[in-house]
């Protein structure tokens, strides 16, 4: 395993949050365009609606058929509104589950890209079972028989990120963040002061290097000097290498042993004590 060194000068956790949210940062479609060929986008959850906050479809990765999916933010006001600022509703998660099942049926690996501030908090989303949609995805993806490789490319916003984030390996770009709550939200609740976001960000251990240390992600993928927003091409090239290696790693196992490993990995998550 090549342990990736941090290229940038040390940044604070909140600075990483800002980079992860940078408007010029590559989004899922920017990666799909650069990493995959023959992308055919598929739409809709077959139950209620199409959700543009998640894009997904069929593609080729270095020639081989795969399924790709990910959160999609929009650039500019109009696109941001169309993409609901990358915040999926239940139909987005149900569409993603359709893709996972499709991958399983045709025995194709899945690449999932995480980039959301969170699941959409709205009346309609609650009415249609946001919690159920997320929970269902978690249970189903834990037993999916094909390889699933997850990459956190920008913001990993809590349950809304995790809903498409359960896989055999989780990679994370150097300046991406992944957190149980936004630093602002955490500061507002625990410090009763959104101005404490800096301290909250530090305490939450949401950077790639901290999460690697905690065993939550498997690999930190270096970004070009200056960050992913400075060059999408070079960022994609670095990620491409990591994805190819990871795919080779996880495809060497047959489905039963991959599922056993996946369960063991999930089973081991957390830190607790049994000494009274």
């Amino acid at each position, binding site marked *: 395993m090549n342990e990736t060194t941090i290229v940038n000068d040390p940044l604070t956790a909140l600075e990483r949050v800002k980079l992860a949210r940078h408007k010029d940062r590559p989004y899922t479609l920017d990666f799909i365009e650069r990493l995959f060929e023959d992308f055919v986008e598929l739409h809709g959850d077959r139950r209620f609606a199409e959700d543009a906050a998640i894009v997904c479809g069929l593609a080729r990765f270095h020639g081989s058929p795969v399924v790709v999916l990910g959160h999609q933010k929009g650039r500019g006001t109009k696109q941001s509104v169309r993409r609901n600022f990358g915040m999926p509703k239940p139909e987005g998660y149900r569409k993603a589950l359709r893709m996972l099942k499709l991958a399983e049926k045709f025995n194709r690996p899945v690449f999932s890209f995480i980039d959301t501030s969170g699941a959409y*908090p709205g009346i309609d*989303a609650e009415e249609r079972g946001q*919690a159920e949609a997320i929970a269902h995805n978690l*249970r189903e993806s834990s037993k999916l028989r094909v390889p699933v490789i997850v990459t956190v490319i920008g913001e990993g916003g809590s349950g809304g990120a995790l809903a498409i984030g359960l896989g055999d390996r989780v990679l994370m770009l150097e300046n991406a963040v992944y957190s149980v*709550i936004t630093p602002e939200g955490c500061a507002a609740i625990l410090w009763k002061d959104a101005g404490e976001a800096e301290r909250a960000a530090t305490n939450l251990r949401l950077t790639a290097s901290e999460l690697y240390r905690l065993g939550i992600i498997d690999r930190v993928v270096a970004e070009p000097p200056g960050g992913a927003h400075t060059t999408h091409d070079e960022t994609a090239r670095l990620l491409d290498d990591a994805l190819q290696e990871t795919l080779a790693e996880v495809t060497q196992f047959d489905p039963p042993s991959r599922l056993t490993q996946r369960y063991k990995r999930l089973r081991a*998550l957390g830190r607790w004590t049994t000494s009274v």
Partner: protein
Amino acid sequence: MSWFRKKDQKVEAVPANERHVKTEGVFQKCPRCETALSRRHLEESLQVCPHCNHHFRLDARLRLAITFDGGEYEELDSEVTSIDALGFVDTKPYPERLVQAKQNSGLPEAIINARGLIGDHLVFVGAMDFSFLGGSMGSAVGEKVTRIIERAINERAAVITFSASGGARMQEGMLSLMQMAKVSAALSLLEEARLPFISVLTDPTTGGVTASFAMLGDVIIAEPKAQIGFAGPRVIEQTIRQKLPEGFQSAEFLLEHGMVDMVVDRREMRPMLIKLLNFMVNPEVHPQVAQVALANNNGKGSSTISQPETSGALSKLDGQPK
């Protein structure tokens, strides 16, 4: 069983002129109808206001006592407790919060695991308690939920959870979030083993608990008027910039939107759980019975039941609860 015999007993309201008498510890005011209720009567009615049906939040151990046959159960996994893996300090260090939570609640964690009989069926129950750091799910809670599921698989038993949670435990950061994945994965094994899981949602069930095990029951029951949802009401109001409608995210709202099977009064909960278990525990699919049948070389029907693939995965795991 005395809990249930007393349920129809009429409890007299305290006369108005007595309400202001200093009766702390003897009377408790109902937050909904404002009737002063004697603590003894409240206990007899399982912490439900006999006047307006308000369901008070229930202590986890009391919940277990009113659920198991004869109030008898064996508490499990109480040694699994939280640690401060991140060195989290907000206005207080997390270890201090943990000590305080244990003192205030009298509980080792935000969930109590138990094993016992319900209607003569072997059941593993996890009862959450909101008084322990808002019932938040940190690593220890996730581990305990996982353990009752794995124990149920090993002993071919049913699982019932009573959730009461504000969501993830922020002080454990991503370790807390990942518990959603861990418990959901364990539930997929329970499902493949075709064992029953009944999820009971009590006030409040929100965030990461709702978006994992709480919404994955074969049958999902909610207590009346319980607040149940994913996002918090304040977050939603800030996002959509409007007031939420009355009754939004109530148990009844979820029933109307098809998210829960039923809303059940706490005093009717145990009989309902027994009814469901009687349906779900089927000797023809229940693997324990199937194995016994095979051992007796009398495999009619049951011999066609194949072992789930992932039960192999589970048996290979290290460090399983004994």
